[in-house]
């Protein structure tokens, strides 16, 4: 069951402190980095909710993020709605679509689940790409950030916007923790462990999956809104399956189902990408090798490795036998 252990809270506190300190002191390049990390972390938190805790590996979360971005862009520019209602509409729409996908895919397992989410994600991508309303390959420009003049904040300044995104990430983490500790979050973990038994106990499993998928979609949608506001321009590429793939890589790197993994993974990934891309144009090679290494090592990403190592050390110190591995299988969907 999900628990906010001392290690997790401590790591998050450390990361928050580092983020705030860095954001206060760095220049434009650094602020862009922070913003990128925060938005990616939000997307990956959304993914970890269903994949790490629910065992539902999704390749449509990039598309859900794109739905949020496009819905916000259309609402605020084409339909002329004010920013805050546009944001709410975008988040709600992404959540609704995610709910639908979750409901339709609830009966699918393993590789089939991965592929059917991919199918839905691609459907959304093609729809946006080929539809004349959304600007096609050219995308949409002229997106504006929220107007916080009333409280004296100008979100057009990078530092303010970076804090805005960090704040959104903080809210996301609080929301995710709440969901995981609520009844439906407990049920989700139960479903992941033994869906059949949950069914036999009387839980309407498909509905639980749909609800959590919907909540996850809302978070992904919010990430999309922020992404749109960040660059003030969007293109169909946001919905490409490679974005979902990237989110998956990040959560694997950070650690599935560790709660901290998405944030840590996002930070490491973005920083690594910037550093590596400065030295060589072959960033994909590095990503591919890292991914293969992490998966074949059977460790649960960086934070998972830390948690498991500490658990093993402490159980050895207490002279109790280490936990037998159930079935000797890796953590799989």
């Amino acid at each position, binding site marked *: *069951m999900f628990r906010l252990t001392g290690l997790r809270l401590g790591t998050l506190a450390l990361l928050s402190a580092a983020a705030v300190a860095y954001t206060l002191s760095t220049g434009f390049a650094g602020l862009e980095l922070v913003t990128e990390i925060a938005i990616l972390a939000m997307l990956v938190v959304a993914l970890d909710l269903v994949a790490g805790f629910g065992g539902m590996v999704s390749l449509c979360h990039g598309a859900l993020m794109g739905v949020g971005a496009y819905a916000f862009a259309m609402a605020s520019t084409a339909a002329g709605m004010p920013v805050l209602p546009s944001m709410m509409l975008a988040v709600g729409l992404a959540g609704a679509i995610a709910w639908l996908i979750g409901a339709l895919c609830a009966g699918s397992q393993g590789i089939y689940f991965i592929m059917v989410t991919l199918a839905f994600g691609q459907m959304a991508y093609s729809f946006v790409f080929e539809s004349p309303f959304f600007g096609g390959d050219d995308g949409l420009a002229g997106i504006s950030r929220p107007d916080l003049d009333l409280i004296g904040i100008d979100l057009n300044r990078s530092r303010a916007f970076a804090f805005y995104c960090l704040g959104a990430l903080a809210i996301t983490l609080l929301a995710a923790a709440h*969901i995981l*500790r*609520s*009844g*439906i979050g*407990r*049920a989700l*973990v*139960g479903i992941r*462990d*033994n869906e*059949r*038994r*949950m*069914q*036999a*106990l*009387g*839980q*309407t*499993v498909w*509905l*639980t999956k749909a*609800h959590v998928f919907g*909540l996850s979609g809302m978070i992904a949608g919010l990430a999309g809104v922020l992404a749109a506001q960040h660059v003030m321009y969007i293109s169909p590429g946001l919905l490409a399956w490679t974005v979902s793939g990237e989110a998956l890589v990040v959560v694997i790197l950070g650690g599935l189902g560790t709660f901290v993994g998405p944030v840590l993974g996002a930070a490491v990934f973005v920083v690594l990408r910037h550093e590596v891309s400065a030295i060589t144009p072959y960033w994909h090679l590095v990503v591919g090798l890292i991914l293969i290494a992490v998966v074949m090592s059977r460790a649960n990403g960086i934070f998972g490795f830390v948690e498991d190592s500490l658990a093993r050390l402490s159980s050895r110190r207490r002279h109790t036998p280490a*936990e*037998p591995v*159930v079935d000797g299988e890796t953590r799989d969907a």
Partner: protein
Amino acid sequence: MLDVRGLDKHFGAIHVTRDVSLKLEKGERRVILGPNGAGKTTLFNLLVGEIAPDAGTIELAGRDITALSVAQRARLGLARSYQKNTLFDGLTVAENLGLAASVATGTARSILRDCLGLGEVRETVREVADRLHLTPHLDDRVSTVSYGIRRQLEVGLALATRPDVILMDEPTSGIGPEMAHSFHHMLASLPRDLTLLIVEHDMDLAFDVADTITVLNYGEVVFDGLPDAARSSALLKEIYLGSWEDA
């Protein structure tokens, strides 16, 4: 409490369940026996809701549940335990029981409160653990406890939903004779308002626990009565032991 009428099931050309009827009163302990291939498992799955009958009805406390799904029947008070341990291996014993109790009270759907922390859920966990001697293991992960404890927990999950009827599929499967006896004792000492229907291979359990015995052979009911009558039935001896008459 449980009224089964004329249940019939074919798998292709094989007639697995033939016109099976039985009636359980509230609080009754019924054991279903039968040689391999008699159709006990199919009957069990029909009652639980995992497969649909070709004909016949099932009524729970007067309500027709024939068309209802597994989850729907569970919510109406029909719990089941599995022959092969179907537990939440990655969770602790307490969390297992807590989940079961939460699902039953509908609190495992809430987005507001933590079902595992609720008073009524914790109370149920305590009670069931107490009754099944699981209390010392509450904080142990299921994957680390012994088979016997897991078998107890298997029944515990069903109990934690506070059902009216529990359908048990070979509850002592895999348990050695020493433990089996205390298991029978545990089953016999369950609250008297709980109705039990047990599918079993083990004769000892049948005679220790049952109020009534139903015997299946080739998909149909061949005996329905008291344990003593079963013990002395020539028909049953023939079914189980075969006869030495010339073919």
